[in-house]
């Protein structure tokens, strides 16, 4: 609970300016807190007269907190193939491990994945915990959770990172829950605080409108899912040495209550727009399925893929798998070119963390220009073919 001492409060309003949620305000000379306070503590730190205090109640610090050591990465694989995000996690994990002076390990579960273990070592791991078992060939929340939880309890790593993918975001929260561990979702930044070695985890929330830095001060392990395409993988080093530990997994951990009847791969889902670095997106302004040809040509020229607004999807010009936004996918490519998209908030929340946003729109007041890095006001039917042509020429140079 946030306690406000009106004797001390001078009504200066510094806290009011500090609160990202607009939850505290000065009324009649003293700060007043609203019920949307998230107890993040920003105001407490900002208060120069120490009029604010967060009452925590009795917090228990885990007794063996200092016994936990080492950085772990859950190396996701599907149908025998390692997911790209696993290499990205090893990239950032390597940095964290060096800073902490500890080992970096990867947990690799699946069927027929033994061959892939060396690629994880080349990507930065010191040690691989390998669970190669036919039962693990089909991802199921319960057995993956059982095995990971069992390993964590045995080896006690201080940090566990997993991809913020369909798989990572489904079973990792259960594992964290069962361990009583803190878990930060969908992180885009990770760092070690020098003073105490704590993992600082930064993530967007409220559809990317705010960023929060989160830590787990009293418990271990510290767990995080990390957004794909944000961290940098290392250059593979085939000379790197590492150890592969083959797990002997007790049978009871592999008993699943979930039966997989079928895996359906969807043709149009083969290209996952969340994993692509360059996206060219079309909206209502593209006008037709034929118009999307222009979008596709530009995307092809840039080695990227096609995305779309809901208006374009609802008009039937392009399948739903390409939709970006609140009810579609959240993407954060290096480059996002929005063509004939107005930039409604429900679209923006899905793409505003892209590194570079280019807007092409004939309406100079379209909200998309507020979040764009650069833009051209004009008719997309003129601009796009010209842009495609010039890029082609430029590449030929």
């Amino acid at each position, binding site marked *: 609970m946030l306690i406000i001492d009106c004797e001390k409060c001078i009504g200066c309003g510094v806290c009011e300016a500090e609160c990202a949620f607009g939850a505290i305000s000065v009324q009649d000379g003293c700060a007043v807190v609203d019920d949307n306070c998230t107890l993040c503590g920003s105001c407490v730190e900002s208060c120069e007269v120490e009029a604010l205090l967060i009452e925590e109640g009795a917090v228990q610090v885990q007794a063996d907190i200092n016994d936990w050591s080492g950085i772990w990465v859950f190396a996701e694989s599907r149908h025998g193939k390692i997911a790209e995000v696993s290499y990205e996690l090893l990239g950032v994990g390597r940095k964290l491990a060096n800073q902490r002076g500890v080992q970096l390990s990867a947990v690799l579960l699946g069927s027929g994945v033994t061959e892939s273990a060396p690629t994880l070592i080349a990507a930065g791991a010191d040690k691989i915990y390998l669970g190669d078992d036919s039962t693990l060939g089909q991802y199921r929340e319960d057995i993956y959770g059982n095995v990971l939880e069992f390993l964590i309890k045995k080896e006690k790593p201080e940090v566990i990172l997993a991809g913020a993918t369909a798989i990572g975001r489904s079973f990792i929260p259960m594992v964290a829950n069962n361990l009583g561990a803190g878990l930060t979702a969908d992180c885009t930044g990770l760092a070690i605080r020098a003073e105490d070695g704590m993992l600082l985890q930064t993530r967007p929330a409220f559809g990317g409108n705010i960023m929060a830095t989160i830590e787990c001060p009293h418990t271990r392990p510290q767990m995080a899912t990390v957004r794909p395409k944000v961290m940098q993988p290392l250059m593979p080093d085939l000379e790197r040495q590492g150890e592969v530990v083959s797990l002997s997994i007790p049978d009871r951990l592999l008993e699943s209550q979930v039966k997989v009847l079928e895996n359906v791969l969807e043709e149009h889902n083969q290209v996952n727009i969340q994993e692509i670095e360059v996206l060219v997106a079309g909206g209502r302004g593209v006008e037709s399925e034929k118009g999307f040809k222009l979008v596709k040509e530009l995307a092809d020229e*840039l080695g990227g893929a096609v995305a779309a607004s809901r208006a374009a999807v609802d008009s039937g010009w392009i399948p739903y798998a390409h939709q970006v936004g609140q009810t579609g996918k959240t993407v954060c490519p290096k480059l996002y070119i929005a063509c004939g998209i107005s930039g409604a908030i429900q679209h923006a929340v899905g793409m505003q963390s892209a590194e570079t946003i280019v807007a092409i729109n004939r309406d100079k007041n379209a909200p998309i220009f507020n979040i764009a890095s650069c833009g051209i006001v004009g008719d997309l039917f003129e601009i796009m073919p010209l842009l495609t042509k010039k890029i082609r020429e430029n590449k030929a140079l």
Partner: protein
Amino acid sequence: MNIIVCIKQVPDAKDVRLDPKTNTLAREGVESIMNPFDRHALEEGVRLKETHGGQVTALSMGPPQAESVLREAISCGADQGVLVSDRAFAGADTWATSYTLRKAIEASGEFDLILCGKQAIDGDTAQVGPGLAGQMKLPFVTCVQKIRNLDDGIIQVERMMDDGFDVLELPVPALLTVVKDINDPRVPSLKGKMKAKKATIKILSAADIGAEEQCIGLAGSPTRVVNVFTPAPRGDRKMFTGSLEEQVDQLVDQLRSYL
């Protein structure tokens, strides 16, 4: 078939914006709504009830005002609403939220299925569903896009994956989190609205559900938000000038690193 649907009250995304002057989330004019994903979870629960009989209970943890989303749930077909509300819950992270929902469910009697939304559009973690399943030791599946069948204690579902979908079977009681593709939620009927108006929402405190003090709110949360900030506005916006062709040239120049 007794079904519990977990519903969170959230600020409406279309109103959520940064006040450019203060660089904080603007509060004025922001309406509180039912989390959009939870609307689909509710609809699915009501449809299952219509086919298999039973009761749908809408459950929420939140401030007293969250009562309104539970009334809305009743107007859309839920039989009753339960609100767990206590100042001591403030600052709960997903662990403490999952714990609190578990205690509330245990205090509310038998069930066959728990339905959650895939994620809440404010906290955005998608962790409460799987966390609650862990708390309750229930089999679970996330991102369900379709319930194909429910028969003889076995439920068959489609789980959306990054490359397509999986078809899975699991026994009930179970927990599912749902995505929006699962259905088109109905609008409340006039009769439903009348019922919602008259309904009494059960309100439970921390003591009522027997929650332990060290497991709820901030004290029960292993994570701590230590800093909240707004992303630096894009200060680098560049609008090109000149003829269209010149502008395109400048853009190509800008995009050089991606070629």
